[in-house]
């Protein structure tokens, strides 16, 4: 077990740089999830840790060792691939033992380790089967088993659950979390799935366009997104972003429709400037018309049972706002709703750079 | 075209490609180069020296009525083989496609002529049509037809076409059957619901959907008739009578090995090469190939 250190890590293909200098440290035993839209470089970064992509700039350290030039097999990592990459012509046992065999681990030791791992993953009855005789979830487990028997210092997961159906995904997600806690091995997990990102890791690294947008605990990232990108990327339905400006005294945000919304703390340094105002759909609270901060005209109402998703427009401005209301709310399109919001749930971003300013 | 991840640089890949590359150079590229070189030279009468003559060999070739006749004859021969063989195969495949149980049985019994060497096919057919002994001439005589492919150029051509087509039926059949089986059942069912009968469906649905297969087979059959029928012709007619079954490849062989005209034979080889290249390019361009560069 060891920590992983990224020191200004860059990657380019020819003149085309796709990762622009990533810094950060993953602590010993920590579970870090890397999340981002497709093409953000998250898989590339993971593959650089694995040694499957060359590192064109900066350093990656595993433990105290710089691994830039090290063969994948020498980095003491194990990886679980999206399509599992099981060896189709080998049995489950052979799949799990292949790496050990190459390392010339004694036969008895291989057997012991494989059987132990199979026990943990409930794969014991399937050791003699070939991958094509297994279900999706079982294959997934074999892929994990193959990683575990190696007793690596680092686990790498490359979207390991995205080939599973929704129900299995939930189940495997919990298993991975439990397993990581039990084994305590430093892990990096790449995904584009919101829920996996929020629930699995100790910390979350949000990547966009080859840059780290934010690196912190999932709740921090949810509550205090540092950038507009993070704000809209994390959370579902996505955060509403409205154009506006700060009042001249910096105490309130003024929307294009003229409503002034009081902030928790005045933002003196940005008085009068153009801003983007973020509000999570679940933070909008229905209220009486006379106390309302926002008036929304419903366009489409989606009844989910547990809650109701209201797609609406901000009175006359054409800006769309989504609100999530608990329970069943009978509503028709065109109906007018009044909302308020707690000042601490407002997110204010600089209009040009998209950086958080409150 | 190449994998995302590679093994680190080492001399290994050179060792891996070496056998194939060496053989390619020694037995393919070097001889082809030789043919190219010779096609621009004329050897003197004693074979001691040779002279660079630009396109003279080609000029001679294309003003030689015998060569031109061979050229057109080859085209005709290919076309006949393609039509006879593909036509028969198409009909058989169309019926085999209708069979649910026993399709494999029929297929097995139709594909094995593929395995017969062209020269064997030639031997068998020339035996069957042997002018004095053969079974077919015996029956043909009863019908008032005098068969002797050693005397009649047309009969010789007909026999060579028959033998060549017979051998190729297996191949065409397999591809047509595969092509038909690849047509989604739902398309045929939709047509049936629209009220199209089996024959109409075949003409308006199956045949048009098979056109890529047909096109592919046309090229394959042309190549087959050009190159792979040497054994048949050699066994049945030796190109005769009076060159009436001499194809381009056969002529390269007779001019090169029997006539010992190196320059002329080389020029003919070059012409053939150009034709193969044209066919290959054609095939790559107009057929959806799985091979990408």
């Amino acid at each position, binding site marked *: 077990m060891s920590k992983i250190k990224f020191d200004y890590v860059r990657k380019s293909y020819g003149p085309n740089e796709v990762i622009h200098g990533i810094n950060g440290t993953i602590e010993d035993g920590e579970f870090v999830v890397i999340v981002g839209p497709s093409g953000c470089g998250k898989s590339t970064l993971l593959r650089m840790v694995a040694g*499957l992509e060359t590192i064109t700039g900066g350093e990656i350290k595993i433990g105290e060792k710089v691994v830039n030039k090290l063969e994948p097999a020498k980095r003491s990592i194990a990886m679980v691939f999206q399509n599992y990459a099981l*060896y189709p012509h080998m049995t489950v046992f052979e799949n799990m033992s292949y790496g050990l065999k190459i390392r010339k681990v004694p036969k008895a030791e291989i057997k012991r380790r494989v059987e132990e791992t199979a026990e943990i993953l409930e794969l014991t009855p399937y050791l003699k089967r070939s991958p094509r005789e297994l279900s999706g979830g079982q294959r997934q487990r074999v892929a994990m088993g193959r990683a575990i028997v*190696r007793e690596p210092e680092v686990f790498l997961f490359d979207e390991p659950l995205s080939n599973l159906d929704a129900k299995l995904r939930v189940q495997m997600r919990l298993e991975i979390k439990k397993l990581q806690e039990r084994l305590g091995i430093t892990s990096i997990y790449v995904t584009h799935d919101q829920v996996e990102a929020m629930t699995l890791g100790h910390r979350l690294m949000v990547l966009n366009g080859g840059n780290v947008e934010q690196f912190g605990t999932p709740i921090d990232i949810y509550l205090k997104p540092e950038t507009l990108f993070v704000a809209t990327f994390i959370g579902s339905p996505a955060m509403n972003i409205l154009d506006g400006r700060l009042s001249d005294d910096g105490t309130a945000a003024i929307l294009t429709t003229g409503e002034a919304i009081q902030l928790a703390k005045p933002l003196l340094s940005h008085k009068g400037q153009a801003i983007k105002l973020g509000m999570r759909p679940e933070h909008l609270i229905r209220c009486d018309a006379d106390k309302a901060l926002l008036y929304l005209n419903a366009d489409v109402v989606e009844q989910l049972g547990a809650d109701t998703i209201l797609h609406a427009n901000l009175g006359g401005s054409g800006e769309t706002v989504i609100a999530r209301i608990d329970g069943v709310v009978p509503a028709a399109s065109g109906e007018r709703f009044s909302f308020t919001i707690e000042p601490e749930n407002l997110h204010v971003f600089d209009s040009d750079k998209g950086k958080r300013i409150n | 075209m190449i*994998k995302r991840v590679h093994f680190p640089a080492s001399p290994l*890949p050179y060792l891996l490609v070496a056998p194939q590359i060496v*053989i390619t150079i020694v037995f393919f590229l070097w001889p082809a180069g030789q043919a190219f070189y010779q096609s621009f030279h004329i050897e003197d009468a004693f074979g001691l020296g040779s002279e660079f003559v630009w396109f003279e060999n080609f000029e001679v070739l294309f003003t030689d009525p015998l060569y031109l006749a061979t050229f057109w004859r080859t085209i005709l021969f290919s076309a006949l083989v393609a039509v006879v063989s593909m036509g028969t195969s198409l009909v058989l495949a169309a019926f085999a496609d209708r069979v649910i149980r026993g399709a*494999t049985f029929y297929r097995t019994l139709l594909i094995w002529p593929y395995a017969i060497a062209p020269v064997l096919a030639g031997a068998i057919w020339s035996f069957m049509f042997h002018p004095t002994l053969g079974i077919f001439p015996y029956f043909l005589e009863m019908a008032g037809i005098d068969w002797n492919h050693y005397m009649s150029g047309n009969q010789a051509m007909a026999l060579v076409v028959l033998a060549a087509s017979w051998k190729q039926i297996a191949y065409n059949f397999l591809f047509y059957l595969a092509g038909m089986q690849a047509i989604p059942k739902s398309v045929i069912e939709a047509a049936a619901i629209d009220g199209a009968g089996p024959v109409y469906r075949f003409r308006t649905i199956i045949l048009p959907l098979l056109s890529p297969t047909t096109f592919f087979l046309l090229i394959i059959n042309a190549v087959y008739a050009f190159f792979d029928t040497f*054994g048949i012709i050699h066994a049945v007619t030796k190109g005769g009578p009076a060159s009436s079954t001499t194809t381009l490849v056969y002529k390269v062989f007779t001019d090169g*090995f029997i006539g010992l005209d190196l320059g002329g034979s080389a020029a003919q080889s070059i012409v053939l*090469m150009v034709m193969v290249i044209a066919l290959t390019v054609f095939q790559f361009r107009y057929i959806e190939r799985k091979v990408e560069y």
Partner: protein
Amino acid sequence: MVENRPFLDFVTHLVLIVGILLVALPIWIMFVASTHDAVRMAHVPLPLLPGGQFWENLRLTFFGNGLKGSETAAVWQLMLNSFIMAMMISIGKISISILSAYAIVYFRFPLRMTFFWMIFITLMLPVEVRIVPTFEVVANLGMLNSYWGLSVPLIASATATFMFRQVFLTIPDELLESARIDGAGPMRFFFDMLLPLSRTNIAALFVIVFIYGWNQYLWPLLVTTDQSMGTIVISIKQMLEAETGSPQWNVIMMTALLAMLPPVAVVIGMQKFFVKGLTETEK
């Protein structure tokens, strides 16, 4: 079948059976000829039903020198030569193509594309086209009348290389990545992963190439002047030429029967691989 039409079903089977009979007719006539004695085969009309001389003809042909007057080697010797040639071509072709395909797909190295194109060009150079100069090369290398001369010039092939390349390209990249993480080097990966995963393709290619090799005609005709190096296929032609003097169609047809047996057996016995091989190498 979309609708139920008993009459059409009847026609279907009728056409197919007639087709099979037509395709099989030449073989039947050949078989009948191989079951009669030379005398019976010399007068018209020739028989259409088998006679009783099959085993006698088989013995005469297989262990004898073939046809009287044709001066071919014993047929068993010719068949052995054919078999050795076909096996050398098959094994050679499969080995060199799978290795070069491996290099081209899994390594990045200078001249890679040059090699690719060199191999590609062989697609356009069938032996018939470069027959005279290739013969000279083989003659100069002293490879006439040898198994090497018979087989080596025929084993380079773009189609086989491309087929393996295609197979390798469909193998997910992650398999290599996973194997590398497991510590497998290039040759280990080749033998542990690629070879077992290409098994069926190798079998399919083997069927096609074996038939191709066994049925070679023009090339063996040129490079073997020594009768003892001849192949069964070219001996047929020599027998046909001798036939004008003394008709022994029973022997010729028995030889033809023997000559077609191995490749036909391969096609029928390995039909699944045969079909796969045809569709994957040519398309």
